[in-house]
């Protein structure tokens, strides 16, 4: 019984299987019939159409590159735009003897070896029926010369192509950035992002700054024409056309006039300045000195200029606000102060009697104050005002390194600020774990002492210092710093605001904030370390000066500014926000090898604040042509930002 059942099942199963196999067989039949009908449609029905396309003409898809979006400052001043230039273009498939044609062309217009190199590279990347530029930026005379002789050169034509131009040249170059020719690396990246076909007609791509980070907004959508071309490769008829869509326009939060004032204030000195509107995180000025002309890069920089820029001792290509790392020095003290106050330490009326040095228990090592003999009786507010080292040495030790770094990390030290251009480095906020990892050494108490005054391993970028100051000015509310405030759709004209966002909020006691603020206001008043900066300002400035050592000084040595090589002089630092009661600008200034923060960096900050708050222009100084220092002969010994290898000794001047 069971046996016959199984057999029946088997029969049944086979029957079902064959039925289903037949169903699939029919599916195959239907599918192949569909294909046959398609063949019939293409090869009989539409034969004439395709025959014509294939035999007499060929179809070519010609990409039409979109106009790149404009970049303007907050007042609508154009910082990057496009203009037409004449280019001489060659279509290789239409030319029998390319070599001799080029030789003949060279007799009409100048074609140098750089042009030739570029032409060969571009030619290798293009279809043979696409035209490739052999010379760009033809002037009127050259264009006319060729036009007259055009009949001699089938396959060569003059086209006008859009070129990027930065009308302000060097000004704000590190912020706006530049575009350059698309290279292999760019191509790989474009392919990865699945946007390669949108770049078919484009030669350029954003390489740095805003141009790079907002590439997706600026580029636009490539249009195309489906054209019939005849046997000579000439376009006979446009079959269909889709217009390109221009890239979106960007409005920066920066004010180019403010930028100009800051850059002129730097003069020939090297350094950086970042100014932020604390309530929104908008970056108002973004200065990196010396700077460079981004126009040089648009069409490929020539070797000489490249050498000049790349090998200069002044390193103009480095984006100092984002990539220059400096010990924050005494500008770190307000943050140490706040850490102490928030931990309930050094609350008024606490004060110390400063004898000019600090000693750890069981140690004879003297951590000296910058002022020999000390400052006498010092409370928290005065400690900030006069930048008393001894006060903060003790506070740092009492807080301990973990508590101190955990607190100031909220102000952005040791991490990227998240500004909307690429290349930022995170600086360094040292912790015992970090030291163990990095040097395989334990943390020493003495290192905590000097972290309290922003020395030791601590490193910060100008961007980080400005951001920390802005957070302080905004009472602990950290806004996301950004350069682009608005994006305008070029087609619809609709603008969208780049949203201001709160990164994080630090809960701070108002009383403590007031103590730090009052201490910082006093800095710019008579008796403070930057009294001259605040003189006759007409508004109140909360500030802190700082000095960062470039070379270490031994325990019993004296630092003499006049005797030290200029490039080994201290860096001058200055942070400030104003008006102190209701701050609308917060900034950080660093003048490399500038010496004292108050006298070197402070006046630059004052000029920026004067213009921003009062609209006051600085007294005009005769403009000087800024020359770059020549490259160091065969060495890189004098790097302006040497990595701090030895922890600086305790002594410094402020």
């Amino acid at each position, binding site marked *: 019984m069971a046996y016959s059942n199984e*057999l029946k*099942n*088997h*029969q049944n*199963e086979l029957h*079902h*299987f*064959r039925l*289903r*196999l037949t169903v*699939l*067989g029919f599916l*195959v039949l239907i*599918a*192949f019939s*569909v*294909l*046959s009908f*398609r*063949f*019939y449609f*293409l*090869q*009989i029905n*539409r*034969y004439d*159409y*395709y*025959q014509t*396309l*294939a*035999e007499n003409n*060929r*179809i070519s*898809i010609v*990409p039409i590159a979109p106009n790149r979006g404009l970049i303007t400052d907050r007042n609508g001043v154009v910082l990057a735009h496009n203009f037409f230039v004449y280019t001489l273009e060659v279509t290789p498939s239409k030319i029998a003897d390319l070599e001799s044609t080029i030789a003949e062309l060279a007799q009409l217009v100048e074609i140098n070896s750089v042009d030739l190199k570029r032409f060969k590279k571009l030619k290798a990347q293009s*279809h*043979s*029926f696409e035209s490739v530029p052999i010379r760009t930026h033809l002037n009127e005379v050259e264009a006319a010369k060729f036009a007259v002789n055009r009949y001699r050169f089938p396959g060569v034509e003059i086209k006008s192509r859009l070129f990027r131009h930065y009308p302000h040249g060097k000004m704000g170059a590190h912020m706006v950035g530049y575009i350059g020719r698309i290279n292999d690396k760019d191509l790989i990246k474009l*392919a*990865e992002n*699945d946007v*390669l*076909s*949108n770049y*078919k*007609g484009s030669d350029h791509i954003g390489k740095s700054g805003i141009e790079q980070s907002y590439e997706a907004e600026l580029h636009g959508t*490539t249009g*195309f024409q*489906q054209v019939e071309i005849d046997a000579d490769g000439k376009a006979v008829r446009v079959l269909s056309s889709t217009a390109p869509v221009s890239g979106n326009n960007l409005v920066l939060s920066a004010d180019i006039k403010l930028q100009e004032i800051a850059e002129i204030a730097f003069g020939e000195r090297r350094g950086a300045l970042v100014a932020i509107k604390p309530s929104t995180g908008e970056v108002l000025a973004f200065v990196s000195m010396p700077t460079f002309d981004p126009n040089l890069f648009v069409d490929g920089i020539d070797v000489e200029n490249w050498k000049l820029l790349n090998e200069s001792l002044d390193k103009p290509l480095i984006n100092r606000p984002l990539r220059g790392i400096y010990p924050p020095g005494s500008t770190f003290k307000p943050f140490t102060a706040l850490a102490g106050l928030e931990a309930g330490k050094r609350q008024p009326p606490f004060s110390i009697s400063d004898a000019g040095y600090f000693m750890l228990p069981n140690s004879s090592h003297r951590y000296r104050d910058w002022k020999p003999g000390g400052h006498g009786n010092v409370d928290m507010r005065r400690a900030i005002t006069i930048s008393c080292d001894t006060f903060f040495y003790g506070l740092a030790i009492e807080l301990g390194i973990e508590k101190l770094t955990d607190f100031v990390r909220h102000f952005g030290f040791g991490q990227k600020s998240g500004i909307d251009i690429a290349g930022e480095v995170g600086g360094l906020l040292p912790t015992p774990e970090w030291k163990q990892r990095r040097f395989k050494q334990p943390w020493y108490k003495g290192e905590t002492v000097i972290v309290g005054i922003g020395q030791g391993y601590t490193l910060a970028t100008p961007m980080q210092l400005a951001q920390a100051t802005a957070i302080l000015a905004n009472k602990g509310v950290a806004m996301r710093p950004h350069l682009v405030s608005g994006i305008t759709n070029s087609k619809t004209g609709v603008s969208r605001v780049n949203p201001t966002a709160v990164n994080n909020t630090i809960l701070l006691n108002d009383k403590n904030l007031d103590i730090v603020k009052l201490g910082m206001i006093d800095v710019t008043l008579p008796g403070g370390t930057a009294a001259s900066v605040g003189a006759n300002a007409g508004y109140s400035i909360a500030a802190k000066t700082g000095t960062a050592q470039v070379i270490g000084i031994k325990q019993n040595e004296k630092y003499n500014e006049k005797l030290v090589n200029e490039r080994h002089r201290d860096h001058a630092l200055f942070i400030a926000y104003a008006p102190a009661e209701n701050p609308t600008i917060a900034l950080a200034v660093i003048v490399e090898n500038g010496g004292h923060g108050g006298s070197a960096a402070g006046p630059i900050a004052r000029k920026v604040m004067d213009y921003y708050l009062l609209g006051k222009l600085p007294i005009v100084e005769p403009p000087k042509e800024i020359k770059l220092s020549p490259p160091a002969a065969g060495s890189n010994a004098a790097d302006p930002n040497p990595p701090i290898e030895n922890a600086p000794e305790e002594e410094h001047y402020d």
Partner: protein
Amino acid sequence: MLNKLAQRFFKHIDSFLISCLLFTLLVGLFVLYSASGQSFGRVSAQVINISVALSTMWIVANIQPQLLERIAVPIYVLGVLLLIGVALFGDISHGARRWLNLGFTKIQPSEIMRIALPMMLAWFFSKREASPRIRDFIIAALLLAVPVAFIMKQPDLGTGLLVTASGFYILFLAGLSWKFLLGGAVAIGALTPVFWSMLHDYQRRRIEILIDPTQDPLGAGYHTIQATIALGSGGVTGKGWLNGTQSQLDFLPERTTDFIFAVFGEEFGLIGNIILLILFSLIIVRGLVIAGQAQTTFSRLLAGSITLTFFTYGFVNIGMVSGILPVVGVPLPLISYGGTSMVSLFIGFGILMSIQTHKKLVASG
């Protein structure tokens, strides 16, 4: 004596199937010669590919189907492990992670899955004594989904879809109920608009371009536009061998691999196309007959799936070149240039021959 030797050598080779295959391969070599710009190098490389593939087929044909049944699970497990290996350590080329470098050689585990997955599923259903239930189909669907997910992630859309198809054929042939099929189709139909509304604009755009490549004439659409011109201008009789203007010029991309059918259709016209479809049909019919006559559940299901997967490859490729299916990277079986896909294809044919020639005499009930 010699005759006997030959007989033993070809004992497990199906003469009808091998005749159709060899003829199609020969046609393929002629097309490749034309498509490669008359390159003897390309053709001889392909001859080597074919020789390797035929030898592999001979070896597989001599293996008993019972042995195949026994190694189904280990091969599947190995295939999945290799796919995991690709996901973790695979080499990236052209933006996809498909190859695994074993030190001495590079392999593409998704190709192994083309054979391993149908073997695994055929084994799974052959072990069910009674008619399979819904639960069995769910397990089978999971066995299918795991390798497919890895292949799709590489990303290799073409192979992923075709491996899915090979598994689906097994489910269908194993008796997946019509209600379930209908229900599935209705569910997909109903969920599509919901899914669509959840996508970002750029994701929609990518799918739209996949379905209608002419929307992106600078990218994916360029292939399709040029291929349809080549096909259409071939007419009834074609332009003749080596005379295809579109294919000989620089216009047609990938013309020795995925788009080789455009060259064929331009040079041999409608007549050539129909002949190729007939050749494919003969191979498919022979495969279906072998499946229908197979003696065990395992052989039946496996033979059916291998045959229909071959059909699917051909149909998807020709459909894509003639512009009625989206462009997914699938070569034209037996014609396109390439070694790995050729070998895995002929392992399939070897299995078909093994199933056909190892039948035991049993009393028919």
